[in-house]
């Protein structure tokens, strides 16, 4: 037996706002639409309805209700709520139809072995939607249209058994047939009203031919809907994998604490949506729209005078922890403050497959990625972003020929060494699916490493360790400038005005070793190096003495230790 479920969100614009501000659920809330000062009430919640507020009221009329909370309609938040609804449906079935911004129909064929009987699936759908911040009505029926009508007409969870469609739909008013397009069908509704037809059972009982003569095919179609006897195939909709959340603020934010509060809420919503799709994220994009206020040097985007401040948080591994993301964003904003009041927050996450890690008894300890990211962000706040990370040696003989890069230790069984499995918008989950083969190849490549780890962890020491011991050079950053006295072409005495310990008679000197490079560029360099032994107060110390042949300066580059 085919089965379809419909998820319907009553008062969708209101629910979209309540999803962002759930604390308003217990208050009288009205959504306004239009340009000030001609804004009219567009949607109200139950509390406001009881207080006498109804859609279409003007500013003067609604002022009678003093405790009414007013919010402007936000299309961006409605888009995010619609995407959330799709995520909720997609977490149960891949065959989903978007029947409207507030209505989603999904095919339940074959889901009973996975999720249990149909009533249980309907309850799970309502619970999942509630977890995502939306209060919904869910109905299950044998065809999509009946399920949609039942979801619009009945609140809560409704399951219509096969053959009982007409009986159960009969008690619903005829207005549910038109849904959001009630205004376009005002003429039909007026006709039904003149005929005395209030309920669907009245419409279903009309003779077919007489109805066709008077209303045409539209009337027959409505009657078929009222009887719950339609038969059509679902039009599957493949939503794009876009995870974005937006908050438009009533007043500009100037403090980090309220901003963090809002960011935390957005991150929780994003993580819940990603979790519903069994995904994680490796990149967070924060875009703050700045109001007029302090002077800032940020880029002015577009033709509008509003400035946007963008930060991108890239993670070495896919994560799905809103608290970690919030802390990272806080630390990032602390290091890079936007510099102006914030009027709109836009947060987006790039979906990727979650990290699959296999721990082992004999593997070396490694920091947890979430903790490591937070630690690195905190350390960057202490020493600076360019002072923490891992090294990469450059292919050059230039002194200090290295650069810092992001520290991301590879795990023995991690798929990180291979191309990222980023899911692009619109791409199906089958795209870029080398996961299994990736893991297998990683396991094969790490067998020697594992054997080494086991040997070392077991207490066995490398026998030829001392052969690898090298004479290390400690670099002075910046180099220490010295005055050198030459004798017979060799340095004989050095004096250092800044450091008395680094001056004295040169006992031995070996050199010079001449090197140069990058002469074809502006940053060319040429130098003579000497290794010298200097008798200091505490003993003999070995230094590397360098003469810059371009500038003629002498300096100590480092000491051998």
């Amino acid at each position, binding site marked *: 037996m085919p089965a379809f479920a419909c998820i319907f969100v009553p008062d969708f614009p209101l629910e979209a706002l309540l999803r962002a501000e759930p604390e308003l659920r217990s208050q009288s809330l009205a959504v306004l639409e239009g340009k000030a000062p001609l804004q009219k009430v567009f949607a109200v919640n139950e509390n406001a309805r009881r207080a006498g507020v109804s859609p279409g009221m003007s500013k003067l009329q609604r002022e009678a209700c003093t405790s009414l909370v007013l919010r402007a309609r936000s299309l961006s938040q409605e888009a995010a709520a619609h995407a959330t609804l799709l995520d909720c449906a997609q977490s149960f079935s891949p065959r989903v139809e978007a029947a409207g911004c507030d209505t989603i129909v999904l095919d339940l064929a074959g889901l009973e072995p996975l999720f249990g009987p149909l009533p249980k699936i309907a309850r799970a759908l309502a619970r999942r939607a509630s977890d995502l911040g939306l209060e919904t009505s869910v109905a299950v029926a044998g065809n999509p249209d009946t399920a949609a009508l039942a979801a619009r007409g009945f609140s809560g969870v409704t399951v219509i058994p096969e053959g009982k469609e007409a009986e159960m739909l009969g008690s619903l008013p005829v207005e549910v047939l038109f849904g959001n397009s009630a205004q376009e069908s005002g003429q039909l509704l007026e006709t039904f009203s003149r005929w005395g037809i209030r309920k669907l059972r009245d419409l279903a009982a009309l003779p077919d031919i007489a109805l066709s003569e008077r209303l045409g095919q539209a009337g027959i179609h409505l009657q078929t809907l009222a009887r719950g006897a339609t038969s059509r195939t679902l039009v599957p909709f493949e939503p794009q994998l876009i995870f974005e959340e937006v908050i438009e603020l009533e007043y500009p934010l100037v403090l980090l604490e309220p901003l963090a509060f809002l960011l935390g809420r957005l991150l929780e919503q994003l993580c819940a949506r990603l979790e519903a799709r069994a995904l994680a994220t490796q990149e967070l994009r924060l875009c703050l729209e700045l109001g007029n206020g302090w002077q800032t040097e940020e880029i002015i985007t577009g033709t509008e005078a509003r400035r946007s401040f963008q930060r991108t948080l890239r993670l070495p591994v896919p994560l799905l922890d809103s608290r970690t993301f919030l802390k990272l964003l806080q630390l990032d904003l602390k290091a890079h403050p936007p510099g102006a009041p914030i009027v709109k927050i836009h947060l987006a996450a790039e979906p990727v497959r979650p990290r699959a890690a296999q721990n082992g008894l004999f593997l070396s300890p490694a920091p947890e990625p979430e903790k490591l990211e937070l*630690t690195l962000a905190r350390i960057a706040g202490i020493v600076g972003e360019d002072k923490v990370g891992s090294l990469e040696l450059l292919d050059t003989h230039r002194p200090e020929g290295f650069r810092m890069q992001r520290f991301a230790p590879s795990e023995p069984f991690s798929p990180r060494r291979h191309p990222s499995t980023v899911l692009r918008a619109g791409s199906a989950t089958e795209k870029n699916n080398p996961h299994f083969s990736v893991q297998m190849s990683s396991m094969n490549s790490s067998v020697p490493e594992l054997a080494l780890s086991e040997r070392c962890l077991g207490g066995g020491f490398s026998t030829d360790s001392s052969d690898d011991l090298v004479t290390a050079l400690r670099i002075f950053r910046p180099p220490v400038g010295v005055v050198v006295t030459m004798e017979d072409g060799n340095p004989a005495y050095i004096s250092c005005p800044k450091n008395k310990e680094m001056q004295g008679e040169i006992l031995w000197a070996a050199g010079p070793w001449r090197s140069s490079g990058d002469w074809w560029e502006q940053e060319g360099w040429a130098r003579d190096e000497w290794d010298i032994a200097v008798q200091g107060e505490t003993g003999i110390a070995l230094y590397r003495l360098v003469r810059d042949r371009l500038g003629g300066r002498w300096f100590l580059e480092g000491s051998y230790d």
Partner: protein
Amino acid sequence: MSSLPLVSTAAPGHPVAVAVPAWPALVFKRLSAMPKLAGVTPASRLEVRPTPQMVSSGVREIDTLTGGLPRGCLTEVCGPASSGRTSILLAALAAATQRQEVCALVDISDAFNPHSAAAAGVNFEKMLWVRCGMRLQKSGSPQRHPSALLRAGSATAKNEKIEKPVEQGLRVTDLLLQSGGFGLVIIDLGDTPLKTARRIPLTSWFRFQRAVEHTATVLFVISQVPCAQTCASLLLKVSGKKLSALSCQFSAKDSSPTHAQLLDGLQVQGELLRSRLDRKPAGSVTAAFATKVRAG
């Protein structure tokens, strides 16, 4: 309340233990009945601390001398400039990264030379390098005060202070140890002035010791003089042996050595000053080893 005396106070100022073991069960029962002493464990029932797991230091002679580097303990290597401390540091780092352990180097003097490390065999993919240095730090940071302004440069000069490298290094080390998961954490105090190094409060070392205790982390410190004092489970003093020999050999000014003679490695002598791993005095046990010139 029980009146069974545990310590005789007959002679004021000279308490004498009373022979109570005749009824140990009764004593333990009464001890547990007293609220203040309910959590007291008799010394006879204290568990012996397990011997820490030892890992290779990368230098065979040091492994022979000390048994390796103990996990979950603080190891300190001290010595003057050009005594071979950094060579030992690189050897330990190379050994740890070859064991696929994640390591961290808190470089307080920003003196690390990547080319020497590459020559020693350090795997940079597994090494986190934190370079400390003078930096203006906003005292009114949003992390400490969440209500700070989201405005660039809002902090006035009064709210800014210069954080010294040692302070940075201690804070960074604290974060790294609390984060956990590192096989080796190195604090390089090799070029830190003696006065500054000695001013590091003992409580910091105690905190570090407590943080690595019962973990697989080796906390390794190099310095000019012993800093961690009793917190160090292993204290090794190194000195450049070859420099002294050269001093005698080339006392005459005219006999200047070639490059190979001067830097064909350092003869390093290590002396074990303290080891709290085996409960016996370490004495003055020494080991000598040599380094090779491979530095760039």
